[in-house]
């Protein structure tokens, strides 16, 4: 192993990891506020990628410009899903049910995407997609850097919203305790709908970058959702900072394993890291230890 490999893994960790972190942040935010595990996040990323693809192929709209359309669209998709299926979902089985409901939503979208776009892999194209530049001995793909910048911008906007706005206070209060938040007059239902919308909207950006850097079809969503879930559990469910660090860390570890042993083991390494971390810290890296006393 040499310094270049390490540097290159660190670069990938930060560039690609931040995009995963963006997608995972949506997931962990939804969980934090609503106790819902959105299994459909994986297929929604793919849906976001296909939207960019459709805009590009049919209307020749640039990938980044297309985001102005796909982000609001995905926000609406999120709002509709929340309204249709989660308003009624209450009671002790809520989280368990949410997994199955979102999985069913995921199957539905997967079937539809297969029928519309066929099961053949596609990849998003653009004049800049394959361009790269080098600093020293490390090569930077343009699209990866752009993805990183996009993720940083969107994550910053998200953090700003959460920590500097009135709405953010409502969201954080709902994360801390839904009942108390409702008692102090926060419209938890409205907050939930908007948070779900935002959590899904980030998949438009994530999906565009993902689609430009990977060939994909609808079934790619399984690989994606498994990684995203790994990230949020590793970071500690509901923890935004945890999602960020775990996203970067995971890609870094995967790359290192790929360099040291073989790329076939790199995806497996995520899950092994997860299992090992949970042995030591069952609540994840930044998760709260759940109290025994209700």
């Amino acid at each position: 192993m040499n310094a270049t490999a390490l540097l290159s893994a660190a670069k990938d960790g930060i560039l690609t990891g931040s995009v995963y972190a963006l997608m995972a942040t949506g997931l962990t935010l939804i969980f934090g506020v609503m106790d819902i595990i959105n299994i459909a996040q994986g297929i929604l990323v793919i849906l976001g990628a296909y939207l960019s693809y459709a805009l590009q192929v049919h209307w020749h709209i640039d990938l980044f410009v297309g985001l102005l359309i796909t982000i609001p669209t995905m926000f609406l998709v999120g709002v509709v899903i929340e309204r249709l299926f989660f308003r009624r979902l209450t009671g002790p089985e809520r989280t368990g049910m949410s997994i199955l409901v979102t999985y069913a939503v995921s199957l539905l979208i997967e079937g539809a995407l297969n029928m519309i776009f066929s099961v053949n892999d596609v990849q998003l194209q653009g004049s800049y997609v394959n361009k790269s530049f080098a600093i020293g001995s490390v090569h930077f793909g343009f699209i990866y850097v752009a993805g990183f910048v996009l993720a940083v911008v969107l994550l910053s906007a998200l953090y700003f919203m959460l920590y500097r706005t009135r709405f953010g206070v409502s969201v954080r209060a709902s994360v801390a305790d839904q009942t108390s938040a409702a008692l102090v007059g926060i419209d938890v239902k409205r907050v939930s709908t908007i948070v779900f919308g935002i959590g899904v909207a980030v998949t438009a950006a994530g999906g565009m970058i993902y689609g430009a850097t990977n060939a994909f079809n609808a079934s790619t969503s399984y690989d994606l959702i498994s990684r995203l879930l790994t990230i949020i559990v590793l970071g500690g469910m509901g923890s935004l900072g945890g999602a960020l660090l775990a996203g970067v860390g995971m890609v870094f570890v995967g790359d290192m394993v790929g360099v040291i042993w073989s790329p076939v083991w790199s995806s497996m390494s995520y899950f092994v890291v997860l299992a090992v971390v949970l042995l030591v810290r069952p609540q994840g890296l930044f998760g709260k230890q759940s109290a025994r006393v209700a």
Partner: protein
Amino acid sequence: MSKLKYSWWAVAVAAFALFPVVVTNPTYTAIGVYTLLFMACATSWNMFSGYSGYIALGSSVFYGVGAYTMALASIHWHMAPGAAMFWLVPLGGLVAVVIAVPIGWIALRVRRHTFVVITIAIFFIFQLGAINFGFTGGTAGLSLPFIQWDASYYNVPFYYVALGIVLVAVVISAAVRRSRFGLQLLAIRDDEDRALGLGVKVGAVKLSGFALSAFVIGMAGAIYAMFQGQIYPQFVFDPTFDVSVALMSFFGGLGTLTGPLLGALVLESAQQYLTVTYSNGSLYLIFFGALFLIVITFMPRGVVNFFLDRRRATLAAASMANPSPTPSAPSTPTPAARSLV
């Protein structure tokens, strides 16, 4: 259970036993085999996840382990192709149990929500392992000793063995529900910490329930491998299997005995039928997703519980109409108090 209920079970078993006698078309008896395998798996999944509330989404680990046990054992022991291979079915179940213990030990240390995700992660470890390790044959899969039964007859033995393990699964699930162990699982579902404070050994109870549920699923996987004659890692370690058994149980009614059976019967036979008729998997995905969402929207506790609740409500209304001997008793219907159907 009343005599009446026993006789309904007897009628159902007889109907299933007669199916291959009446319907001899191999296409349909094959659908029968797959459906029975899913009925067994969903029942067994429900025996742990439905009773304890710990939703596992990695059950195909056990299915795959059972399948690979059947494949590797029959190949390495040079078994004569034929009915003798059925003896490996219980072995597949046992190996799955052995694998389930360390998995459960890791996964059950965390709380419910995280547990789901860990089971998914462990599933991917196994799937990627099966693809990448040498002894599994990688993506090329493994070919089992080739059974040369006549096509008109080939499915029938598998059908009856599968029916047998459905019965095993039902008996285990019913026995658990009537045992103190089942009571402890239900207590864990309702309030795990309180149960701990009343002396329930929650760790041991959860782990043994988890491992027990692996047994039938492992056996089903073994039958599948033998039935197919050829296995591939992505088909025996299949994420849609994980969801299917869970969705089937929810569809029918989580924590009930008949719910998972009904769910698997409806959904798996429909899936097979749609696939055979239209040879279009995507159509099935849409059908499955939509049907589940519709059911869960209108019957949030599943089909079986929906009708049970209605019957209870009717009974309660009837007893309200008559002067009650205990007027001070609350008249609320008792949701899910008796899940054993």
